[in-house]
């Protein structure tokens, strides 16, 4: 297990979501919350229930039993295939800032005791965007799950395909969907957890092909960006558009689960889909 996994760095998340100091201001209800209380509450605002975004390692700690996670493919790195302007620098900065190698963490672990293959997208790392490495690691996660007869749980948080790897990023949609097909053919369960935000190419590939779709309350989930849609229809978007609750009404999400119940719910779903019997 890598060092950054045991001792996750919260700085980047905190920098964005919470003002410095002992008190944090909730972006939804604007109330001040004692920072330690917010941490204890899994970064859910105790006043209004707003689910702050989690980093990849925070999400992993929330979901996977302590001491059971074995990471896969932590050594894969982008090689800037297009020589895209500013990409190499921004990539290096993302690695340095987050202390993590890419926008996804993959591996195996136990979820309330149930062995599973897990892929967690990390919005802190270049907006959780899917380029060659994310696509490759996600695809390998599904392939290894087939080999090991494990169910797959993905937690998505992503702005979509990674622009800086051009159409190679787009091809990761096909690659990951093909890998989901292998899991499907093997009859193994796939729970897709949709976190804030899940948009673009990640939504239009593996994340929307789960046997069960679990979303966090209030999470933004959609394909096209709100600004693009507003420009197209030339009017304001409806209240609550592209929230988890909206997607539930639209029949695209199975369950909305508060963060405190996420782990137990995923484990229960895996059990009910016959995954409990597999010894990992």
């Amino acid at each position, binding site marked *: 297990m890598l060092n950054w996994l045991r001792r996750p760095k919260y700085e980047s998340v905190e920098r964005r979501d919470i003002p410095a100091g002992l008190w944090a201001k909730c972006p939804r209800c604007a109330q001040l919350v004692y920072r330690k209380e917010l941490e204890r509450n899994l970064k859910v605002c105790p006043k209004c229930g707003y689910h702050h975004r989690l980093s990849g390692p925070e999400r992993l700690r929330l979901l996977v039993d302590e001491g059971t996670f074995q990471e896969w493919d*932590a*050594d*894969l*790195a*982008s*090689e800037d*295939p*297009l020589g895209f*302007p*500013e990409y190499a620098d921004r990539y290096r900065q993302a690695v340095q800032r987050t202390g993590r*190698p890419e926008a996804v963490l993959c591996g195996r672990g136990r979820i309330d005791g149930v062995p599973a293959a897990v892929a967690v997208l990390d919005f802190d790392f270049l907006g959780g965007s899917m*380029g*060659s*490495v994310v*696509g*490759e690691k996600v695809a*390998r996660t599904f392939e290894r799950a087939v080999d090991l007869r494990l169910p797959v749980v993905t937690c998505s948080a992503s702005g979509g*395909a*990674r*622009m800086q*790897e*051009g*159409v*190679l*990023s*787009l*091809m*990761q*949609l*096909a*690659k990951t*969907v*093909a*890998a*989901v*097909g*292998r899991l499907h*053919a093997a009859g193994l369960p796939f729970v897709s957890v949709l976190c804030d935000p899940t948009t*673009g*190419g990640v*939504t*239009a*590939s*593996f*994340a*929307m*092909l789960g046997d069960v779709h679990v979303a966090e309350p209030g999470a933004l989930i*959609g*394909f*096209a960006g709100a600004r*693009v*849609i507003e420009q*197209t*229809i030339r009017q304001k*978007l*409806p209240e609550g*558009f592209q929230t988890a609750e*909206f997607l539930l009404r*639209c029949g*695209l999400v199975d369950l909305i689960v508060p963060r405190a119940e996420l782990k137990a719910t995923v484990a229960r779903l895996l059990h009910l889909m016959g995954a409990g019997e597999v010894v990992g």
Partner: protein
Amino acid sequence: MTDAQDRAARERELEQLEEQLAQMRASGADTADLEARVQALREAVWRHPSPWQVVQAARHPQRPKLGDYLTRIFTDVVELHGDRLFGDDPAVFAGLARLDGEPVVVVGHHKGKDTRENVYRRWGMPNPEGYRKAARLFRLADKLGLPVVALVDTPAAYPGVEAEERGQAEAIARSIFTLVQLRSPVVVAITGEGGSGGALAIGVGDRVLMMQYAIYSVIPPEGCAAILWRDAARKEEAASALKLTAQDLLELGVVDEVVPEPLGGAHRDPDRAAAALHEALTRHLGEVRALPPEERIRCRYDKYRRMGRFSLRPAHAAAPSDDPRSADVR
């Protein structure tokens, strides 16, 4: 004068000469001299077109559309309608036809020929119904053992409130899911604009061909420039950065063959463009048809499985993995 300004000036000159030539032809005057000048200039302008030039060619209003290829390449075309769920999307064509006398399923983005038709067909930007109609036809091809030919030409999946409500992302993902598992041969051709997920939804196949001046990109150059430099006007730079031309994508391993176009774009000679596309479709379909279905599905899986470029992080690269997928495979 910069290269780009120089190029733009020559493009303007070419346009003017072409207009003049057309007028002279109409009036019955002798045009031999002018024709030679136009041809020379055209060659100069299009020998090494800039990516932005290609973007403009791919979006040229007169560029041949689905209908132009349908009539020139296929016979006995019957359009089928509807997703059997909610509606029929005019932005997606789906039907049965013959290619070289053999029945095939044809699917493609359907742009209009004029403003009115463009509005009706949403400029070839599908709603979920369009992708679900396509996926229905893919399954029909699978049932009947018919090959699939998909012609890609879309700016994007339609960004609308109702499209989101009805699961645009799900429709795209499901269509790809259907294609990667299809027993039938699937040959795709990017004929115009390959706009991100909206294109890929029907653009996954055993072979992916690309017309010489077509583009295929994860984001439009304008959007890329707006995000990267907060300045949509720098679209030409973005077009270069995105590596969206057929030649780029051939080198990146995303497309299998570039189909040649008449100098300056398929709209200058749609018949010749269609003939070249026809030849390539026939050849590739013949090759993938020869494989047994299981082998074909395996090869298709491997094809997409290999796409992307990455490396091992230096700190860990001392002992490279023996997994062939661990390193750059192109």
